């Protein structure tokens, strides 16, 4: 009954989405005022889809084995939280989550958009509904999450312990909210291209949505990186794996979009670029989801692979992105660009910023797909991996980081003050840091060395917008910008420290042996067999100290029986100045054990920086939204911010 309710809700929602499309066509071709009904239908569609998703969560929570999806992915012995998380830990459920977010986003736009022109809003809601329609079709025709199983089996198959991990449970929703959040920007862009109303008002309406999606993507990527770091036992945080790149590409586009929107909002300029970026950002989300689910690229992160599903997604990609690009080509002529920007102005700074971001995006895109294209054209198989991306994206990122220090200091229209004077101190700090690395660590590679210099410069430069004014009076949006840019510098210093100062110790040790890694003495005391609910393990006891204050670390190699798998549970201890990361491997014939130890100074700065970037975004979002809430009560705010 619950499953059938969910399925019915989904069908209804699909019907309403189709109706919204009809409304949109009506609105564009004639002057019928359909905004009210459009808003209403969008909200109902969102509610219905949320209901359907809720029904799915319910059948998983109740372990209703008569639903095929629950049987395949769950088990009554699972802890409750993983029963629920199992709802989106599979293809059908995650697709339902995707379309739910699409529909709910549309509902929120319908409920809260007051600043957009009516025709554009109608067109945007219509576009959002069309996006959802394709996914409804996919779900209802090819991936029904509510399919029944007769007779209902007694219990389910899905007890894979590897999927019962908090990181794995919450990683998909965060990323999806980000990916699908970008659909709103896409829809606004499509809507505005249809009606021709591309202006600063549109930019101000779009901005909170872009910010929200961008914040979630930043969090999703940062969390994903940390989770892979501690869970996989390899000591690395980014491998430039195709699935990782699939999440980075929308983020890069969204970052460029975020900055471009600011130009459109403040100056009414960069219309064509902003619209194109809005389309590209969501297109990257679609390309990403296609790459991850179709299995066409080899990856450690591979999902359940099915070329058939890949085909459907490819068709949706072709239709949505193709239509948007055609619309852009046809309507782009009406997007008149204004006068050129002054060389030293915030607009120019943002244009250069976007150029660099787009180049990085292009490199990641090319590197990820190049092996496929070369093989299609010439049959040759070549590989593109971390060494390529690090070599190219690294220097570009440093260049970007330098720009990040300069841009916020520039005024709109024309910067007449000697801004570069303000930057003297940060530049000095950067150069001093560089010199210090040369003196203290002459053997360091050039890229981490430059990373330190640029990070030091940016730490100082990012705070400058708050200097020379009362920081408490500065708008929240400015605080947000400062915090995010500061976060970039923090993350950069973490990456440089990791690259320059990480030490690794790989050894085969007998109990009693002491190994040195960095400043640490680590003694292997013993390795004892242990067991858990559904696993057995060899647990090593390591005693570590660097002078005084010893402590124990217990890394494990776990063996699960159903299905037979082997995992490394690393043991990590975090200090203010780094992490001691330990992994135990297999035993050899003589009773000695493989040990892998790292001392990673300041590595946590990488994810702390990522978190700061997201926090900055949240502050900026708050800064944009609060006045809207206050405006209802205070007319003077309305005058200032409308």
């Amino acid at each position, binding site marked *: 009954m619950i499953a059938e309710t969910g399925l019915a809700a989904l069908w209804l929602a699909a019907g309403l989405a189709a109706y919204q499309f009809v409304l949109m066509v009506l609105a564009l071709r004639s002057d019928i005022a359909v905004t009210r009904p459009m808003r209403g239908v969008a909200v109902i569609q969102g509610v219905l889809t949320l209901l359907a998703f809720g029904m799915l969560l319910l059948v998983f929570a109740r372990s209703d084995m008569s639903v095929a999806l629950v049987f395949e992915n769950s088990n009554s012995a699972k802890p409750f939280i993983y029963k629920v998380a199992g709802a989106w830990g599979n293809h059908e459920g995650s697709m339902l989550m995707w379309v739910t977010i699409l529909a709910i986003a549309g509902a929120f736009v319908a409920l809260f958009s007051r600043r957009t022109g009516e025709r554009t809003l109608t067109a945007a809601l219509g576009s959002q509904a069309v996006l959802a329609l394709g996914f409804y079709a996919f779900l209802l025709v090819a991936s029904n999450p509510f399919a029944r199983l007769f007779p209902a089996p007694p219990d389910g198959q*899905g007890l*894979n312990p590897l999927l019962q991990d908090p990181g794995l449970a919450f990683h998909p929703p965060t990323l999806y909210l980000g990916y699908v959040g970008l659909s709103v920007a896409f829809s606004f862009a499509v809507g505005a291209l249809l009606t021709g109303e591309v202006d600063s008002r549109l930019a101000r309406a779009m901005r909170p949505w872009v910010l929200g999606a961008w914040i979630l993507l930043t969090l999703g990527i940062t969390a994903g990186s940390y989770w892979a770091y501690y869970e996989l036992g390899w000591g690395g945080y980014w491998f430039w794996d195709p699935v990782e790149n699939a999440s980075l590409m929308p983020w890069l586009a969204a970052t460029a979009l975020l900055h471009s929107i600011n130009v459109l909002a403040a100056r009414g300029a960069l219309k064509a670029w902003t619209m194109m970026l809005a389309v590209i950002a969501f297109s990257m989300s679609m390309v990403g989801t296609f790459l991850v689910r179709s299995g066409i690229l080899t990856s*450690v*992160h591979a999902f359940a692979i099915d070329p058939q599903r890949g085909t459907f997604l490819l068709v949706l990609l072709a239709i949505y992105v193709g239509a948007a690009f055609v619309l852009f080509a046809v309507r782009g002529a009406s997007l008149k660009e204004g006068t050129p920007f002054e060389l030293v102005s915030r607009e120019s700074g943002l244009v250069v910023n976007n150029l660099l971001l787009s180049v990085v995006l*292009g490199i990641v895109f090319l590197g990820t797909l190049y092996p496929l294209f070369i093989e299609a054209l010439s049959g040759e198989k*070549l590989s593109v991996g971390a*060494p390529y991306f690090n*070599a190219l994206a690294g220097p570009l990122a440093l260049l970007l980081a330098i720009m990040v220090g300069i841009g916020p200091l520039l005024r709109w229209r024309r910067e007449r003050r000697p801004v570069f004077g303000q930057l003297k101190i940060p530049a000095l700090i950067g150069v001093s840091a560089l010199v210090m690395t040369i003196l203290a660590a002459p053997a360091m590679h050039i890229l981490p060395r430059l990373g330190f210099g640029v990070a030091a410069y940016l730490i100082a430069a990012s705070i400058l917008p708050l200097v020379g004014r009362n920081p408490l009076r500065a708008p929240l949006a400015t605080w947000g910008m400062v915090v995010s840019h500061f976060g970039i510098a923090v993350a950069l210093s973490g990456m440089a420290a990791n690259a320059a100062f990480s030490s690794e110790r790989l050894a085969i040790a007998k109990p009693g042996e002491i190994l040195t890694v960095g400043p640490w003495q680590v003694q292997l005391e013993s390795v004892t067999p242990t067991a858990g609910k559904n696993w057995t393990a060899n647990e090593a006891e390591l005693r570590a100290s660097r002078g005084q204050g010893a402590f124990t670390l217990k890394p494990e190699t*776990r063996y699960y029986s159903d299905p*037979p798998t082997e995992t490394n549970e690393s043991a990590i201890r975090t200090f203010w100045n780094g992490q001691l990361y330990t992994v135990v491997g297999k035993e050899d014939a003589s009773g000695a054990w493989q040990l892998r130890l790292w001392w990673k100074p300041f590595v946590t700065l990488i994810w702390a920086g990522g978190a700061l970037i997201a926090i900055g975004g949240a502050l900026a979002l708050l800064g944009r939204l609060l006045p809207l809430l206050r405006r209802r009560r205070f007319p003077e705010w309305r005058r200032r911010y409308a």
Partner: protein
Amino acid sequence: MNRNSSSPKNPASSKYRIWVPAFAGLTILLGSPALADSNLPPAYWANRQLPNASQEAQAQALMEQLRCLVCQGQSIADSDAELAGDMRDLVRRRIAAGEKPSAIRSWLIQRYGTWISYRPTDEPAAWPLWLAPLALLLAGAWLIRGRIKLKGSR
């Protein structure tokens, strides 16, 4: 054609077709299936560092550039596969003997093709990859040429 491989992590390989339905969903493989392994222990230098720190650093840098033939989504530095271990041993032995990392890489490319190098080589097929940043920068600069007023123009 079936083939056996020790502890692969790539669920796309045919060896894994039997596991995919069992996972039936998000199969992010955090662990390696305990499949048939060989009867012998890992090679001596597979999991030991060279005593000379700079040689070890060279070896590590090279290992991170070589793609694991079994797991295919990892470098031999990170892979648990036995063949990866044997390759790490090969790399360390040769570097300890004084061979240059680039020579070892070329030797392996002669055996397996450029596929095994995560760093694209300088062959013509890889030129677009290396020229891309410059090309993209120039293309981008040309596209925005009308947007920024340079001194003395117009």
